[in-house]
């Protein structure tokens, strides 16, 4: 089976910053792949190399076997990108923007018009088809970004922070739609700050930090690498945790045993598997268990742990390379432009 994405030793250097330091990744066709990382990790740079907006300093990247530089046209034709920034043509109503985008991909006008309508219906803003992008609400703008990515019928859908700043309902709508597309065969590459999103949607995630891939694994595998907490209430708790030292006879999964407010707290990897052994040992030692709760480590905790840095270690936080801020709309430069472009029809917006 062809891989949707094969990246080897991808590097990108700016003047005084190495944004990508040899990223290697493989994304299987049909998978739902997550790219996690803190601000400045290099996620958006990575994506922009794939679509031709950033030129790599070294390494190779292939989309469905097409090199992103040598076979750039075939590679780009495979990709539908919903970037974090609102980089949309402001001169035309949104249905025309979609028709144009499809046309750039070689879709004849009549088919492009049908696809534009379909994409707008898919994301639920068909009734706004004659509106310009500037007049859409924040949530609708985010929906439109997805519609634009879909209108070319891509084999690889790249979503860069698709749910940044959107409300819960819209986020769930987006999740449902993207999941459906993935089930129909579209490969999805998702970057997100919402760890829950990756946990819920992705088959596999790569954690990117400071331009390097820290790890690639399924969310479940990653969570297994974290430590769970097994909290047990005993009828007669001992005076100190030392009295319970018999609980860990050579089990290297158990990292710590303590007493917190009369409850026994066992910190262990794969807490779900450790718990039955704990129950047996406690029973054997004559303790009566009143209640037990397993608090599973979250992907977020694993993520934070893997990307944690000491203060002052030179992490390029907020350096602007990634552009993946947490605010809605990201780096929407139009807000700062000296013109309100086509919408207001002022001089600079309409020459």
């Amino acid at each position, binding site marked *: 089976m062809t891989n949707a994405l094969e990246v080897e030793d991808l590097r990108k250097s700016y003047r005084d910053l190495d944004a990508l330091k040899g990223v290697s990744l493989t994304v299987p066709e049909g998978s739902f792949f997550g790219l996690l990382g803190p601000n400045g990790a290099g996620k958006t740079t990575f994506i922009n190399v794939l679509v031709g*907006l950033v030129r790599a300093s070294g390494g190779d990247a292939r989309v469905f076997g097409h090199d992103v530089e040598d076979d750039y046209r075939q590679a*780009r034709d495979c990709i539908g990108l919903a970037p974090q*920034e609102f980089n949309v*043509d402001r001169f035309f109503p949104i249905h025309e923007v979609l028709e144009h985008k499809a046309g750039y*991909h070689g879709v004849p006008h009549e088919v*492009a018009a049908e696809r534009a309508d379909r994409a707008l219906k898919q994301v639920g803003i068909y009734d706004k088809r004659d509106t310009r992008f500037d007049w859409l609400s924040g949530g609708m703008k985010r929906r439109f970004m997805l519609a634009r990515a879909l209108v070319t019928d891509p084999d690889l859908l790249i979503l860069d922070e698709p749910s940044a700043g959107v409300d819960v309902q819209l986020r769930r709508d987006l999740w449902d739609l993207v999941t459906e597309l993935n089930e129909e065969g579209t490969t999805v590459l998702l970057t997100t700050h919402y760890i829950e999103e990756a946990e819920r949607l992705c088959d596999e995630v790569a954690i990117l930090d400071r331009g390097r891939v820290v790890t690639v694994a399924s969310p479940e595998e990653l969570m297994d690498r974290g430590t769970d907490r097994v909290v047990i209430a005993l009828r007669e708790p001992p005076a100190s945790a030392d009295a319970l030292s018999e609980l860990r006879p050579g089990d290297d999964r158990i990292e710590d045993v303590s007493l917190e407010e009369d409850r026994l707290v066992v910190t262990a990897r794969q807490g779900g598997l450790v718990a039955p052994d704990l129950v047996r040992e406690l029973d054997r030692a004559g303790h009566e268990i009143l209640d037990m709760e397993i608090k599973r480590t979250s992907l977020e905790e694993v993520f934070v742990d893997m990307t944690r840095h000491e203060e002052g270690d030179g992490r390029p936080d907020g350096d602007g390379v990634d552009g993946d801020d947490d605010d809605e709309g990201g780096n929407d430069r139009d807000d700062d432009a000296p*013109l309100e472009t086509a919408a207001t029809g002022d001089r600079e917006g309409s*020459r």
Partner: protein
Amino acid sequence: MSGDGRTVDLTGFLTLTKREVLRFLRRPSNTFAPPFITNVLYFSVFGVILGERVGTITGVPYILFILPGLVVLGAVSNSFENASFSIFHGRWNEYIHEVLTSPLSYAGMVGAYVLAAATRGLLVGGLIAAIGWAIVSALFRPVPVEEPVYLLAFMLVITLLFASLGVIGGLAASDFDDLTVMNQFILRPLVFFGAVFYSLEDLTPLLRDVSLLNPMVYMVNGVRYGFLGVAEVDPRLSLVVLAGMTAAAVGLDVLLFKRGYGLTD
């Protein structure tokens, strides 16, 4: 995916050209009204009021003499402005990414921007010619176009040339002020010193020789030959040189797009 490369490129090229043309057609108050008003004023003040005092130049009424130059001024400045503004505005607001992330070839992208901008130049040039012809016909008599093939060829070449120069301007600009500087401080002086309002014969030998270094002289001269059948410089040579410059400028555009100059990080 959408189809084979050639289909994608032709459809993509036509779509981008259409998008670019619609952008200026749908905003006539910004694209056609200003040259209309400006040229009515030019013809009224320079052609009618001052023209009566000037009399004839190279055997034709002054208003008829300046008409080709004003057509060139409007055509080239609109070609340049359309391409440079469209590219820079797209860069500024980043919506040019819609094009850059598509499977369109770099030649297809450049071709669409250049062709659409040249179309605007031709339309504005035609508008100015119509205004001038209407006034000339009212004041004197209807005058036929003496060399229509040359006129068309020169208009095509100069609008394509300035459209392709506009692409370079749009890629090189880092601010909207840069576009104004290019238009007001480079383009207009070249046109005004390009023998639009005067004959080269009226200049001293030194100034005439210096003027011949200005490419605009050949453009104005060529278009004037097309309209009036009189030329101060060999129109065939001018056409060949200008066509060569156009080909070079388009080639440079494609190279800049390919290298991502002003477009990619």
